[in-house]
């Protein structure tokens, strides 16, 4: 075997650890954004008999809470959050089979996101997707220039809890209304919450076109998505915001 990264070898040597030290270590490495270490430690913790739901609640989600706090306090910046989010998902990936078996939902829900028809602005929407992932959402990104029919098809295929639309142009905002109207016509509107955002979009516009919410940036959007899920009766994992 080739030379191991010092952090990996330290993690690998943790055979005699107790549950708490695992939980602390996972947390620390998640906050530091080390996905491979989090994955390794999660596997080890599982093997050593730490219950999967404990790893989720007391390590992964707790760590993300700390990440969000650090971001708000400007100790961490977007790339840090992105790396931590990757580490979170590395841990969740390992735990997924056990959690569904144990009936614990780690997923906050599923979000279908896209930039609306005629609009090619990409990066804002991607950031919203990243921040939602960091809150534990599963995000399906439909890309840019997504026509209303595609959103509807996406809802049918992926059955999301939330539809998120981005528009950066005055000239493409109208497509958000068309999409919502088409969802209504297709009897899908009631099945999903709709959140919208982007430069020219306002709270008032969101109300006018019948969206459920407006988010002025990725962080606020993700927070709103969390509270949307909390208001839905059938799910209710602990709050990470």
């Amino acid at each position, binding site marked *: 075997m080739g030379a191991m990264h010092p952090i990996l070898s330290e993690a690998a040597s943790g055979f005699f650890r107790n549950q708490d030290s695992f939980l602390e270590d996972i947390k620390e490495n998640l906050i530091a954004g080390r996905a491979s270490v989090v994955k390794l430690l999660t596997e080890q913790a599982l093997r050593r008999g730490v219950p999967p739901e404990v790893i989720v609640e007391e390590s992964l989600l707790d760590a993300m809470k700390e990440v969000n706090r650090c971001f708000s306090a400007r100790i961490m*910046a*977007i*790339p840090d959050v992105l790396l931590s989010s990757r580490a979170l998902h590395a841990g969740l990936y390992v735990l997924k089979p056990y959690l569904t078996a144990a009936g614990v939902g780690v997923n906050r829900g599923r979000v279908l996101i896209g930039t609306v028809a005629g609009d090619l602005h*990409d*990066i804002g929407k991607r950031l919203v997707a990243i921040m939602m992932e960091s809150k534990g959402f599963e995000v399906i990104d439909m890309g840019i220039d997504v026509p209303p029919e595609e959103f509807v098809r996406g809802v049918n295929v992926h059955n999301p809890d939330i539809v998120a639309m981005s528009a950066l142009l*005055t000239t493409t905002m109208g497509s958000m209304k068309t999409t919502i109207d088409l969802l209504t016509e297709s009897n899908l509107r009631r099945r999903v919450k709709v959140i919208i955002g982007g430069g*020219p979009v306002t709270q008032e516009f969101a109300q006018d076109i019948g969206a459920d919410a407006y988010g002025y*940036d990725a962080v606020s959007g993700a927070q709103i998505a969390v509270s949307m899920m909390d208001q839905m009766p059938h799910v209710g994992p602990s709050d990470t915001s």
Partner: protein
Amino acid sequence: MRSNYTVNASTHLRVLSDSQLEEIHYAVLEVLERTGVDVYHDGALDLLKKAGAYVSGNNVRIPSAMVEAALKSSPSRVTLCTRDKRRTVLLEGYNFHFGTGSDCPFIIDLYTGQRRKFTKKDVAEGMKLCDALPNIDFVMSMGLISDIAPPVSDRHQFEAMLLNTTKPIVFTAHNRAGCEDILAMSAAVAGGIEEVVKDPFICLYAEPISPLKHMYEAVDKLIWAGENRIPVVYTPCIMSGATAPATLAGAMVSATAETLAGLCIHQIVGEGAPFIMGGVYGIMDMHTTIFTYGSPEFMLMQSAVSELAHFYRKPVFSTAGCSDSKVLDEQAAIEAALSILLAAQSGGNLIHDVGYLESGIVSSFDMLVMCDEIIGMVKRIVRGIEVDDETLAVDVIHKVGPGGHFLAEEHTMRHFRSQTWFPSVINRQRYEEWVNSGSLTLRERVTSKAKAILAEHVPKEVSGKAVDEVQRIIRSAEDREL
């Protein structure tokens, strides 16, 4: 007689050395040859392939020789004219000209201070203001109009510009049909398409999608401009750290690769047609996720892209006079002043976005008037200090002698006007005089200047016949598109 005498006829600024510029250039060529760009336009893909690029699917890897050929065939200078055919904006060397930006969704209402949607009337008024401001040399629309149906809003926006200023217009259009209508409207005023091509008073604006993607509409506009020989600005809007590398040099490389890929397409269809390379090179603020228009990194890169353009001997589109502040305040003034100084110092030929607030989401007439003043100040700074026998003034120093004064000297009379910049909204009153005239802040003074201009200024009119033709073109676009 003397030898080895050097003159600084203006102030100097260099961010990058010749060696560094050359290194960036080679990195750009390597990116184009190795990574290539994605082009979503079948016609362009065909052309690029025939010209010798390696096309696979939408990806196009461009050999260095092809890029160098495009750099060779495109002109080193482009002249933009006024609507009445004065050749005022010479985009060459270190010449610099300032103008507004385009397409903001919102305006800060001059009368109420409210942030609200941009209307067609706002564009007309903005242009009137630009027409009167002495340091604004060209215009962009300032806002994207919200009170006209989107498919034809570009034609209406252009009409509002065309009729309210004679200054050269950098326009945006939704697509090729929009470009064609706008050219027809311009031809109606100029007396034919050829007149517009000979003395262009319009210039198209188009953008790639960073990183390294060229979508259909943008490429189609480039091709349209090349075919019709209408000047075009092709300008990446990169965010270092998000849509380009976090290192400023890397961001410049990625963005310039986008520009030069655009140049290749453009020169294949219109060899020698006028092309202006661009730059809105910014960073993403990693806490708020905004595209910064006021960061020091943004200003540095604006200077660097101008220097790169000088290295290529190509005209350049630069950015300054804009801010991340939400209103005209101290932050806006700091960011505007520094960016205007740096952009001018580095000879950004066509420096746009003057008057932008909130990172390009809001245009403000107040901000524009303040920036006009800053540009005046900066022009004086850049002019530097003239040194010759007359300005060294040894004779008059001798004449006045110790303890005298210079106020009444012939020498003073001869020079003080041309040596000095005279402010318009910058205040130099003594305290009591300032109090007596209402204790107005800079903000209040720029607001009242903007209002006064709008009340008084009458832009040169377009002939009634041409106006009719312009409106006929709009109506027929409406019949087709709505």
